[in-house]
């Protein structure tokens, strides 16, 4: 417990969780949610070590019924290790973890029976057809065949795979495989759906289709736990999220509150000429904060156009300018001094 860093003790943490009534859900879930006392998942001082490597370094978080909770961070931040501990697929090295009120070390099988896992790498059964993948996965949960067949029909529809039901898995596109993996995770009608990097490696169209499906689940009141290194994905899907870096939680809150707290309203992005130096001095005073990246300069300000005007007046030689609103990417940069995707 003592090890527990940030998150819970951070100034933003409390107001974040208080100010996050999970969006919508006209389902049975909402009735239960009004009693928002017991979190579905609760971690305190959670640590995961592999030999001498510390993958997760003492994190605290609570995830509540019906919310869509995100772990945002670059590769190697400890997101997947955290997911695997929640899914009872990796023993906790230190600290406490309760999932659905149970201890993974004791009740792993019971917890897994109520979780749907969409792992980072699709682990679909390549020796079976699309439909059989759903059927056998349901059988692992001891669900009667008749019930699975019924659900499979709906799930194939949901995943837009009905016409591929009798196809083998291998020829499917990446997006289709991903949707099938999600459908498979839903066959047991889990209380909790865990998605590890759900859209990594997909083209934009496939991503949007997948997001749409996840939205629908969210609207039905399904509790989602998502890891991602895409800030747009986190902004789109998460009611609340933690920013992870080097196995620790750097900040927690709603996407909006994080941007408000750690960044300015707008950002002026300038593509700078190659090999240019002394940028910070030349732009001093124009913005609240200036970040210099390898190829770009970011000026954080509440009025991007005004800043651009000022840049022009100083005859700063940029190649391309863009005024945009702040994103979680900027939050991450501010918190860690690194980009999310390098």
């Amino acid at each position, binding site marked *: 417990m003592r090890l527990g860093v940030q998150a819970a003790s951070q100034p933003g943490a409390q107001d974040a969780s208080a100010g996050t009534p999970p969006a919508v859900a006209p389902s049975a879930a909402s009735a239960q949610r009004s009693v928002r006392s017991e979190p579905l998942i609760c971690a305190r001082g959670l640590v995961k070590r*592999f030999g001498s490597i510390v993958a997760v370094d003492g994190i605290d978080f609570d995830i509540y019924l019906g919310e869509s909770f995100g772990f945002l961070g670059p590769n190697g931040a400890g997101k997947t290790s955290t997911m695997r501990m929640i*899914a009872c*697929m*990796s*023993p906790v090295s230190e600290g406490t973890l309760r999932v659905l009120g149970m201890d993974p070390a004791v009740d*792993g*099988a*019971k917890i*897994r*029976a109520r*979780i749907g*896992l969409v*792992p980072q*790498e699709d*682990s*679909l*059964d*390549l*020796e*079976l057809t699309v439909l*059989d993948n759903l*059927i*056998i*996965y349901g*059988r*692992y*949960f*001891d669900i009667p065949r008749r019930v699975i067949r019924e659900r499979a029909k709906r799930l194939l529809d949901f995943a837009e795979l009905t016409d591929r039901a009798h196809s083998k898995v291998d020829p499917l596109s990446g997006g289709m495989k991903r949707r099938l993996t999600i459908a498979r995770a839903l066959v*047991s009608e889990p209380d909790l759906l865990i998605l590890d990097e759900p859209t990594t490696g997909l083209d934009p169209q496939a991503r949007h289709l997948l997001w749409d499906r996840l939205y629908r689940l969210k609207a039905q009141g399904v509790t989602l736990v998502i890891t991602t290194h895409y800030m747009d994905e986190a902004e789109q899907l998460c009611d609340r999220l933690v920013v992870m870096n080097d196995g620790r939680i750097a900040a927690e809150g709603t996407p909006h509150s994080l941007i408000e707290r750690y960044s300015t309203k707008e950002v002026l992005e300038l593509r700078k000429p190659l090999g240019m130096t002394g940028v910070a001095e030349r732009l001093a005073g124009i913005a609240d904060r200036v970040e210099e990246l390898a190829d770009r300069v970011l000026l954080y300000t509440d009025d991007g156009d005004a800043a651009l005007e000022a840049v022009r007046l100083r005859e700063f030689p940029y190649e391309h300018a863009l005024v945009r609103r702040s994103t979680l990417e900027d939050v991450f940069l501010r918190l860690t001094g690194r980009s999310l995707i390098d």
Partner: protein
Amino acid sequence: MKLATALDSGRGRPFPLARITPSTLLGGGRARRVVERNILVYRRGWIFIVSGFFEPFFYLLSIGIGLNKLVGVVEVGGRAIPYTSFVAAGLLAASAMNGAIFDATFGIFFKLKIVKTYDAMLSTPLGPADVARGELAWALIRGGAYAGAFLVVMAGLGYVGSGWAVVCFPAAVLVSFAFSGAGMAATTYMRSWQDFDLVSLAVLPLFLFSATFYPLGVYPGWLQLIVRLTPLYQGVALLRGLDLGLFSWSLLGHGVYLLVMGALGLAVSARRLSVLVLP
């Protein structure tokens, strides 16, 4: 992925028998889901049933007819018996070993490391012990089917030693159990396909030197002692003794050896699966 193809065209053969075998007896609990999955995979591979019958048929016919001409009669336990009966029991044991080893090594490695079947299984309520027991149960179903086919061919060619040959069926399944367990355990330690050369390196001498083709008496004393300690010899001696109806306490010893070997393999496999898939 060429080995995946090898797997498909190899011994991936189902039997209608598998559908009616109560896997609960073999695996029990959730382990039966693993068997169910394998049945689902192989249910359309009826061609393997045919090859499952012809493989022993060719084997027995060639060695039986060919070598029988040269050898004629062999003495076992003071009794002169036709070479065909002598070698058939040995080949039954060797075939049970080969089938079990092939499935337990290539088959398990493929699912464990290549297509990650167990990653998916272990994200459900199934545990490592369920998976290990289920795979072993499946190996026994298949091993039983092969052994049954083998015995039928043996009987059809008139190569059985006595009416006791019927008891060879469960004994051959026991041989499958021992080698499946051990093979699965060994597979969990393999890092790449290259390591499978070691399997061949172990299996070939077992096949050739375990008194499969000629009596143990032809070896010098020290080699006899070594052979007596090796696993396939237990199977060969057990099946030959049963086939000829030559009962002795040593048969019990062979049976216990194989039982312990399979059980140890199973325990190690479950432990290793946990370490590998659920780090």
